[in-house]
């Protein structure tokens, strides 16, 4: 399998034929950490419109998913926290952008469940809050739980540190975050990696996400990896 059909030269090639107006995209990352920065640029350049994007956050004004707000390609965001983004606020308040808040753990579990063939699950998170409005509740063992539907999408865009040509992935530190659950829940999953290696170069026991979830993979050559809150201590 040295000439893996999953391997593409760059983001534009890897996304070719997978983008369409009105589609739902699941994007990995937490803040600016572990975001698929090459694919966000390629999606911007493709001009695809009316996107629904599920992502924990929406980048900042001039980086990450914020770039797709600049071009008004996003119609709706499904997120847990969007406080870092003035453009978001502006478009939301003037009605250009829809927003669905999900508690962070509920968003992660919705994707995990979606990828695992589980259509819904019950959670205590959000019981007695606005998140429960219109949702079914049920008591188990004397406690009230809320039914949440799973989340799937047309396309998952995720980032990993290392991947082999079969799509087996290794993440690095807290850049793993939403990348793993998001990868499992898209009809197609495209991955950008910092290091693309040969099959066999990663110990099978050390793989974080099996390549079965990955349809296309490419090596990104200029990760900017911007830091949102550089915080240091004095020596």
């Amino acid at each position, binding site marked *: 399998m040295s000439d893996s059909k999953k391997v593409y030269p760059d983001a534009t090639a890897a996304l070719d034929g997978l983008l369409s107006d009105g589609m739902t995209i699941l994007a990995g990352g937490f803040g600016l950490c572990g975001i698929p920065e090459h694919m966000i640029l390629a999606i911007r350049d493709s001009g695809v419109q009316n996107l629904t994007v599920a992502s924990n956050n929406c980048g900042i004004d001039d980086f990450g998913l914020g770039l797709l707000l600049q071009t008004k390609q996003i119609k709706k965001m499904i997120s847990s926290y969007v406080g870092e983004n003035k453009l978001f606020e502006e478009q939301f308040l003037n009605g250009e952008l829809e927003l669905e808040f999900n508690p*962070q753990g509920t968003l*992660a579990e919705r994707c995990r469940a979606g990828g695992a063939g589980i259509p819904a699950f019950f959670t205590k998170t959000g019981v007695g809050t606005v998140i429960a409005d219109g949702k079914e509740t049920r008591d188990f063992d004397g406690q009230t739980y809320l039914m949440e539907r799973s989340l799937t999408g047309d396309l998952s865009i995720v980032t990993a540190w290392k991947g082999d040509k079969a799509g087996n992935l290794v993440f690095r530190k807290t850049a793993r975050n939403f990348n793993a659950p998001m990868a499992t829940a898209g009809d197609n999953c495209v991955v950008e990696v910092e290091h693309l290696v040969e099959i066999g170069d990663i110990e099978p026991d050390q793989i974080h996400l099996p390549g079965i979830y990955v349809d296309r993979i490419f090596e990104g050559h200029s990760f900017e990896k911007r830091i949102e809150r550089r915080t*240091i201590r004095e020596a």
Partner: protein
Amino acid sequence: MAWTRDQMCERAALELEDGFYVNLGIGMPTLVANYIPDSMNVTFQSENGMLGMGAFPLDNEVDADLINAGKQTITELPESVYFDSATSFAMIRGGHIDLSILGALQVAQNGDLANWMIPGKMVKGMGGAMDLVAGVRRVIVLMDHNAKDGSPKLLKQCDLPLTGAGVVDTVITDLGLFEIKGGQLYLSELAPETTLDEVRERTEAEFVQ
């Protein structure tokens, strides 16, 4: 003299126990970590996918792939472990985290908590707060006793949208420590040189001493 912010954090740190797994909220709760005795082994969870959070990095140690839930750069410890967001919230929701300390806009006498949204202002989102208060075994709120305009924050009923219903176990303010048991609020400790009358005057909630 009521408790200063440092003294509130110091008091909150006394609620930690050896071997605890703890999640600290953004802001003042983060400072509680500074008051843990060296002899005590406490592991901090960061809900973006890490157990065993270390200190902020030196300038030359900064790593874009290593941040906390407040998006600040941090470091790892020998015992650190990383995992994805679904696994992170499975350990939160599953009751495996012993204690969460977080801030609040309002707390009601029955343990209702409001800390994520003020209607009419831009809504930033709840992040992981709803999951934490629903899943962590014990929830401590660390907050000023009154808002900046002097209005009470310990109320009969929250008027802001809730983060969780009946989820708060303990409230530490500059005036004292309160516990909520069986839907009732108890004043357990008064800050030094603080009178019961002062607490009553500055609290809307009904409490038992």
